[in-house]
C-alpha cells in the first residue's frame, strides 16, 4: 500500500514502488533471507544503504542482519515480507519515502529449536542522483520467539 502526500501520476507511482521495493528487498535478502546458511559473510547487507547509513548500520549489524545467529542457522524460511510506503511528492516528484516494514521468517536450526524472527519498523529512503533509491535512515526492532509460538504474522 502506498500513501502519497502531494501528487504522483500513476506511472510514476508504479515506477517508484518498483525502485523502492527493489532497494528494500535487496536489503532483506542480503541481511536475512538470502545466501547459503550457515553463512558468515554479511558484508553486502547494506549495499542499498547510503554511505553514512551503512557505516552506522554496520555497528548495529547484530540486529540489522542475521550475523549473530548465522552460524547456528541451517536455513531461513520467509513467512511474510511487507513494506507500506508513505511518499512525500510535491509537484509530481517523489522526494522521500518512509517505508513501514514487517519481515517475518523462521530460522531453522539443526541443533536447537527453530526460531521465528520478526523485523519491524521504519526505513527512510531518498533518491540518489543516479535515480536509484537508497536507505538513509532506519528505526528497526527485532524480536524472536520459538517457532510455532507467538503467532504474529
Amino acid at each position, binding site marked *: 500500500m502506498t*500513501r*502519497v*502526500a*502531494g501528487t504522483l501520476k500513476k506511472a510514476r507511482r508504479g515506477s517508484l514502488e518498483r525502485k523502492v521495493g527493489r532497494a528494500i528487498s535487496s536489503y532483506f535478502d542480503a541481511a536475512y533471507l538470502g545466501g547459503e546458511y550457515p553463512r558468515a559473510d554479511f558484508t553486502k547487507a547494506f549495499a542499498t*544503504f*547510503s*554511505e*553514512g*547509513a551503512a*557505516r*552506522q*548500520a554496520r555497528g*548495529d549489524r547484530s*540486529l*540489522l542482519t542475521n550475523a549473530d545467529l548465522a552460524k547456528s542457522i541451517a536455513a531461513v524460511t520467509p513467512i511474510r515480507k511487507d513494506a*507500506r510506503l*508513505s*511518499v*512525500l511528492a*510535491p*509537484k509530481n*516528484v517523489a*522526494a*522521500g519515502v*518512509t517505508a*513501514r516494514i*514487517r519481515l517475518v521468517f523462521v530460522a531453522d536450526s539443526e541443533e536447537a529449536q527453530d526460531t521465528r524472527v520478526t523485523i*519491524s*519498523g*521504519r526505513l*527512510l529512503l*531518498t*533518491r540518489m542522483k543516479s535515480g536509484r533509491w537508497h536507505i*538513509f*535512515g*532506519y*528505526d*528497526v*526492532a*527485532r*524480536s*524472536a*520467539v520459538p517457532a510455532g*509460538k*507467538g503467532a504474529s504474522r
Partner: protein
Amino acid sequence: MNRFHWTRHFRTRHFRRARQITVLGVVLAMTAIVVPPATVRNAPTALVKVESVRGIDHEPHVIWILALGSDARPGQSVVRSRADAIQLVGVNTKTGAATAIGIPRDSYVNIPGQGRNKINAALYFGGPQLMAGAVADMVGIRPDYVFTTGFLGFRAMVQSMGGITVRSKYSFTDVVMPGGYRVGKNKLNGLQALIFARIRYGLPRGDFDRSANQQRTMVGILREVRSKADKPGFMERSLLSVVKNMDTNLRPSELFMLAQALTQIQPDKITRCVIGGSTGSAGAASVVFPDIGQARSIANRARKDATLNGRC
C-alpha cells in the same frame, strides 16, 4: 502499525529500565501466584524481548539551526521584519542530544555592516543571512539553517498538530487562556502557544523568561511531532504543508532528510540555556546588554556534539 515499538523509543533509558523492572516484577509476582510449579504448559501469555536500533545518515551529524519567530504583521514579509523569538539550536543526529541557546531579542550587539543595535533588527535590515551573521558574531557559531516563521504560520503549525503541551515555570494570565497559564503542564492550542511564547509581562525576568518559554514551546512541539511520527503519512503530510507554506531554498528531498534527522532529538536530552545579561538603555530604547562571555562559553562547549557539559 507497531505502536508498542515506537512507544519504547520515547522513554528515557532510565525510565525504560525502571519500567522494565516494574513490569518484570509484576509479571514475576503474578507468575509466582498463578503458575503451578514444574509443569509443562502452553502459556496463555508471553513476554518477549524486543531489541531496537535507529540511525540516520546526515552529514555533518551536528546541525545548528537558527529558529526565528518574526513579528511580521499581515502583508509584511516574515523575513524582513523584526525577530521576536531567537533560538540557536544544535542537534546531534547520532546521539539524539540537543542544546538550545536562547538569545533575548533586545540584546544590544554589533550587527555586521549596521553598527550596534538590538539583535532582532538584523532580520529587518538583511533577512535571515544577516541575522545568522549577527548571531554568529555574538555567540561564535554560524547556523547551518535559518528557519523563520510568523504569527500565522506558527499558530497554523501548532494547530495542525492538534495543540501542544508545555510545562510552565510560572503562572500568569492572558485573555486567550481561560483560567490562565498554570505552573506545570498546560495543553495549548495554536493561539495559546503563540501567546505563551511571546508574552513577557507577568514573568519575573521579562525578556529572559520569555526566551525560556520559547524553548519550552519548542520542546512541546518536538514531543508532539515525535509522538505522531509513527502514524503512517504524518511526516509526509506535515512536510508537504511546510513545502507549500514556507519560503525555502532547500530541495524537498533535503527537507525530508533534515526533518527526519530532527526527529532523532530526544526531548529529555535537550539542554536549554538563555543567555543572561543586564538591562539598560541605549538612547531611547530599553535594551539587554548580553553576557557575551557566557554566550561564547556555552557555544564552545556545545559546538562539536550539541551537548552541554556543565551548567549554562
